């Protein structure tokens, strides 16, 4: 059985390794910002990454968005019907999607798909010495690999969030007006009555931060990979776990800031 001293030592080790890891991550971000504006800009690589993060996530965002909108409309309808405000299903779903569901779920999906892929790609390059090859050629791996991916994440996630909102609202509209037979004109008029552009801005602003952090974490854990294939698996796993946790934690702080600003 573990004695008190061992327990304290373990806590101490955990704290030290967490601070060390956080320090290394911030160093990595500093290096990213250092290289961000340095030429060459490798526009082609940035577009290729946007295509990978954005375009290749469209189908999954389409599915997730439409079914999320439909499910939330379904649940909301049964609650609201009890107090006879079922005409408010549209605005409730639209607001939920705009402010929270679209940016957070898109962030989680991108963390699981693109964040993991970024960590796996860079991790594999690390263990097969491709990252060393870049360094030996006098090319910064952060400049060549991380900068385009992080820029792409920051640009692509807001676009995916807007798509998520759109298809989610279409799903909600289908369930509300076709399944529960809410009057179409009433549905739309209530949405336009309660929805403001600020609500959409809130979600889109959040998604910029989520895109940045998910791509940063994915690339960071890629560069931390050691010990062959097992290390690549661990790095990918850490990228997904920390990417998702960070999206949820950051969401709280961004929400508390944005409700005051907007």
């Amino acid at each position, binding site marked *: 059985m573990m004695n008190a001293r061992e327990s304290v030592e373990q806590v101490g080790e955990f704290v030290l390794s967490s601070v060390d890891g956080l320090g290394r991550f911030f160093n990595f971000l500093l290096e990213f910002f250092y290289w961000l504006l340095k030429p*060459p800009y490798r526009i082609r690589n940035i577009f290729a990454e946007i295509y990978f993060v954005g375009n290749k996530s469209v189908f999954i965002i389409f599915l997730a968005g439409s079914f999320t909108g439909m499910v939330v409309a379904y649940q909301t309808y049964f609650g609201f019907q009890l107090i006879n405000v079922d005409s408010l299903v549209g605005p409730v779903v639209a607001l939920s999607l705009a402010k929270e569901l679209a940016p957070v779920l898109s962030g989680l999906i991108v963390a699981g798909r693109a964040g993991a892929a970024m960590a796996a790609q860079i991790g*594999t*390059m690390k263990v*097969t*010495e*491709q990252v*060393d*090859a870049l*360094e*030996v*050629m*006098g*090319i*910064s791996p952060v400049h060549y690999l991380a900068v385009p991916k992080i820029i792409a994440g920051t640009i692509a996630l807001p676009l995916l969030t807007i798509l998520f909102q759109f298809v989610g609202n279409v799903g909600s509209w289908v369930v509300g007006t076709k399944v529960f037979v809410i009057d179409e004109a009433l549905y739309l008029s209530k949405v336009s009555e309660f929805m403001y552009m600020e609500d959409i801005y809130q979600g889109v602003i959040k998604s910029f931060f989520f895109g940045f952090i998910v791509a940063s974490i994915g690339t960071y854990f890629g560069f931390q990979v050691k010990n062959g294939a097992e290390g690549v698996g661990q790095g990918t796993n850490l990228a997904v776990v920390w990417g998702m946790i960070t999206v949820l934690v950051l969401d709280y702080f961004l929400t508390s800031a944005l409700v005051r600003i907007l």
Partner: protein
Amino acid sequence: MSDENAIEISGLTKMFGKQTVLDSLSFDVKKGSITTILGFSGAGKSTLLKHILGLVRPTKGSISVLGRDLAKLKPVELMAFRRNFGMLFQYAALFDYMSAFDNVAFPIREFLKDSEQMVEQKVKDLLESVGITEMSFYKLPSELSGGMRKRVGLARALALSPSIMLYDEPTTGLDPITTNMVNELIADTAHKNKGMTSIIISHDVKASLKISDYVAFLDKGKIVEYLPVHEFEKSSNPYVRKFLDL
């Protein structure tokens, strides 16, 4: 620094935690020579190579390459300075998402302002010089054999005409015929690029004796023998003899 030397290492010590990997190591590499560093696994050969490239900072001691003290270079200067090196990695380290052609074109496109037509010509010449035929130009590394990957890796390393060429265990994992081919390619590359300094990290005693001008033997972080190849063969150092007589 003497004009005769491409690399001068003095009192180099590297410690990882409490473990001493390189221990007060001193030696010079002559310009234009082929120098092989032999040693058992874990002797510190790869760590030494990383120091020469400036990828690792020494705990103590200094390294001068082509007259520049690496410790005095800022990280960005060091990055630019590394363009003086070409390196053939153990498993070639080709970018796996690029064809053989694009791998070789990569450093040229990154650093030289050549037109795409010139890039094409240079890459073609480089690939042909290492024995890659046009049929394999657009194959991915995964579609190439180990020997062919090494050839493409060598062509990429030579793309910017480096002053110093480094080979990290170039024949590891290859069959005897391909090993022979890679060794001939190294000797041929040094012969074609007069003035280029070559450093080979290897376990391969036979090949080292065949293609090198100088051989150093590294054991437990120290250079225990460093001699011209014909003298190295006759060395009476017990560590060296153990290795040579295997």
